[in-house]
């Protein structure tokens, strides 16, 4: 079976003009990611992880280099075309959840589909409910974002990233705001999605997380300094079982 290349980066550079100086956030990054990989991207703060992820997520355009997302060249696209591409091919999970305030879980998850007129209201709601069930929040559909714990909010955010059935899920420090146990719960969820065949790119500065992914890319000063496939993926679920129970939930 030939594997589909979801992401192909060729010598990506990203320079930021800060006053007189030019900051080189990415200095020639090249790699490709195939369907079904769970890639962690690591590096110290300022190494260019977020810039890379924004580029992968079509939020940012590289200064030079080629980027193909699911076979489509992104570099030459207009702002609007990139917005549509994000809507159809990408699911974002942020460190601080970024849910709409005072809005129910279902409505939050429906959001990406609101910007896709091909999907009718019934289907939209149905898919939002399914996505919420997939992240284990089938019983919290009408809970508002301010009535949920951090872990629950991040699950809603993951459901929102799943709902458009994206080519790749991009997570930037998705467990950064959560305690150890909740972080593992989220990791379990990502591993489950991975097992279902989804492509995931997970940015983190926590080196321990590499054990649970299928591949780890390490950045330093805007360059890839290490790219290792993990043949011995550990189960986050087993670790979770050894952790003490939280009071909440």
């Amino acid at each position, binding site marked *: 079976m030939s594997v589909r290349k979801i992401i192909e980066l060729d010598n990506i550079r990203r320079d930021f003009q800060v006053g007189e100086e030019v900051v080189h956030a990415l200095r020639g990054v090249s790699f490709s990611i195939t369907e079904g990989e769970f890639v962690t991207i690591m590096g110290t703060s300022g190494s260019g992880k977020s810039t890379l992820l*924004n580029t992968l*997520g079509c*939020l*940012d355009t590289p200064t030079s280099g080629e980027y193909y997302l699911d076979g489509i060249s992104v570099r030459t696209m207009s*702002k*609007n075309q990139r*917005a*549509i591409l*994000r*809507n*159809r091919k990408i699911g*974002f999970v*942020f460190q601080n959840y*970024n849910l*709409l*305030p*005072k*809005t129910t879980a279902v*409505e939050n998850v429906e*959001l*990406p589909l*609101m*910007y*896709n*007129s091909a999907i009718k209201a019934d289907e939209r709601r149905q898919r939002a409910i399914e996505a919420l069930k997939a992240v284990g929040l089938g019983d919290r559909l009408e809970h508002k974002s301010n009535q949920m714990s951090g872990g629950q909010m991040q699950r809603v955010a993951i459901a*929102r990233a799943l709902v*458009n059935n994206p080519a790749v899920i991009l997570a930037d420090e998705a467990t950064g705001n959560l305690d150890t146990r909740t972080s593992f719960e989220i990791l379990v969820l990502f591993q489950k999605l991975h097992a279902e065949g989804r492509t995931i790119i997970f940015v983190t500065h926590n080196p321990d997380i590499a054990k649970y992914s299928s591949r780890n890319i390490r950045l330093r000063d805007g360059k890839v300094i290490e790219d290792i496939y993990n043949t011995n993926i550990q189960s986050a679920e087993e670790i979770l079982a050894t952790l003490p129970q939280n009071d909440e939930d």
Partner: protein
Amino acid sequence: MNITNLFKIAMRALANNKMRAFLTMLGIIIGVASVIAMLAIGQGSKISIQNQISEMGANMIMIHPGADRRGGVRQDPSAMQTLKLENYETLRSEARLISSISPNVSASGQLIAGANNYPSSVSGVSIDYLDIRQLKVKDGTMFTQNDINTSAKVCVIGKTIVDNLFPDGTSPLGKVIRFNQVPFRVIGVLQAKGYNSMGMDQDAVVLAPYTTVMKRLLAQTYLNSIFASALSEELSPLAVEEISTILRREHKIKEGFEDDFTIRTQEEISSMLNTTSTLMTTLLACIAGISLVVGGIGIMNIMYVSVTERTREIGLRMSVGARGIDILSQFLIEAILISITGGLIGVIFGCGISLLIKFVANWPIFIQPWSVLVSFAVCTITGVFFGWYPAKKAANLDPIEAIRYE
């Protein structure tokens, strides 16, 4: 992007921020409501003044003794005695451009009927006075030329006098009332007219033959004033000229010397009062305009703040695939919904307040359809315009910066 979804997006955003939506609306509600109410008050008083002026008399011309006093210069008391009964008689026989004419002499004192008394004045007039002032005798009759010729001690009284002298409701017709010891027989009662625009009770009148008042009450030969009616409104200025010519001749005033009498017409008074009420309407409109502007600034302020406050929301929407145009549309739809809802509530409030003032405070109120339309349109446009600018700003945000915004 389909409009139904954008509409739904905007509705959800509004529903999640009811307080903000309400505060924005408040500016529009106050703006629209105050414009409608103020204009209704202004227009109402204008119309009521016009009505009262036309009720005051028919193309009325008033001739007073003394030079034009509008300058405020004090006059010699003798100057106030220049209008003589002969002048009235000459005018009556010579002036061609007037339909009716009546002398007016006035005596003030106390009216007494049985145990009741009431301070009042008695106007000595001719029969024409009724036509000139548009008065009607409701019960009984007006005095006759014969009564005038014989200086008969008869009178016709207004409703206020009836109410005060005959509080028990007995008919005053045929009754004798005393004025400064002189007995008058009541032969008629006037139809009530109410208060005029200057707050004067038009029913506190006692009319008697001018001969009676001059001879039996005052023993004077000069008149307080002469009232006349021009043949038509258009002829009024010519009638004034004719009267002036006759009086100057009678008073032997040489060319180049000032009149020793003053002639005013109803039109003059009405235009004077109209100027006042126009001034008031303008003033009210200004106040209303200011509240409209304040309302608009309120809208702009809240819209602007909400873009800043909602930067992350905008960033998030963009990250899940909203284009600039989608964000712009969302904010515009929000602004339009708020403005139209606020405008409608403002119209309801404005009309409600106007009617409340009408029925509670008894002010004359007239709600003009165009004022409702204009204030609604202006506020809605203000809301949409002030909503557009921050929306444009939101649409141009960079998604990365927006989502990272703290």
